[in-house]
């Protein structure tokens, strides 16, 4: 599945200064792994050493927070837009 991934400003340097990139995968985790292959260094900023999504990072598929879906195992489909959003003050709303 090909999806668009929206990159937050502080990580855009890693992604060739782009705010949106294409990536592939069947689940969110796959897409994140693919993102790391395409743009090395991305993963360690988003995930802890134990492989958990960092507490201050929220990932959305279209408008839905993956923590309310199936987290990393959430399936993705062609054309989905994934947004990586740092939390502000524990923020969960967009």
């Amino acid at each position: 599945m090909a999806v668009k991934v929206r990159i937050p400003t502080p990580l855009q340097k890693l992604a060739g200064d782009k705010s949106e990139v294409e990536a592939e995968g069947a689940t969110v985790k796959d897409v994140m792994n693919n993102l790391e292959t395409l743009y090395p260094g991305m993963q360690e900023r988003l995930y802890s050493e134990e492989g958990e999504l960092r507490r201050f990072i929220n990932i959305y598929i279209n408008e839905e927070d993956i923590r309310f879906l199936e987290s990393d195992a959430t399936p993705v489909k062609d054309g989905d837009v994934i947004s990586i959003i740092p939390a502000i003050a524990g923020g969960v709303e967009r």
Partner: protein
Amino acid sequence: MHYIMEAPPQVTRFDKSVLRKIGHTPLIKLESITRHLAKDVEIYAKAEWHNVGGSVKARPALRMIQEGIREGKLGRGKILLDSTSGNTGVAYAIIGRILGFKVQLVIPANVCKERKGIMASAYNAELILSDPLESSDGAIKLAQEIYRKNPDKFFMPDQYNNPYNWMAHRDTTAKEIWEQTGGRITHFVAGIGTSGTLMGTTRGLKSFNPNILSYAVEPAEALHGLEGLKHMETSIVPGIYDPSVFDEKISIPTEDGYNMVMRIEKEEGIIVGQSSGAALCGALQVAEKIEKGIIITVFPDSCAECNIAHGDFSI
């Protein structure tokens, strides 16, 4: 934990309102978290959530507004417009409500719903949401764009570039700390966002005693979750930020800041925001290297609503 001397009350020209509740915040001695330190090393935190609006930002917000009125920039019919990630917005909204001017705030869309609720529902400010991917820098850019299109309509305090931001701290925070410690302070540690707290308080304290050492706490990573703090290297650098004012910079990883918030809650019984956790991490790093000293740090807010709503900063 215990409180030491309260700062003396200060009369402002708005002293018939809750705006009197700005400044004169208590200084709290941290007793438990500091137990491992040398016996002559003490850490105190300025409890800034005691300001009206619940944060340190009431101080610069009030000062910038007072000066805006004095200079004729915030006259009849003008709307106050600025970018904020929360606390300054709450302060503007409260002051606007009391003094009777409209407030428009540009905030990143990912600011938590509790803050948005306080600003919009409780104090009637109009919120304009900026791209959450760009965080506070996106809000700064959007506010400037809106202002440029209609400069006559707005008064924009521009907290990142307004010298009255840091002057508020030089004239109040520094003075209070000096008086509350009886001039015994040796080190000052504070987080940097707009950098107003650090710039102003440091300048004020060094005017009382140039030997006081000052430390800036910033997030260790460009992508961080320490709300209110800025990673200067990768952000729009505020015009009021001057690295020559302080002595050293301390970088704190987000997770360390979050964990310290939990420790402060469990060991000291105080609920504070994430930037307070980072500030205390910095203060402890300084404290662990010295044998004697009085270290003062600033706890900018309590963020109790967010903590209660989201528990361990998660959902």
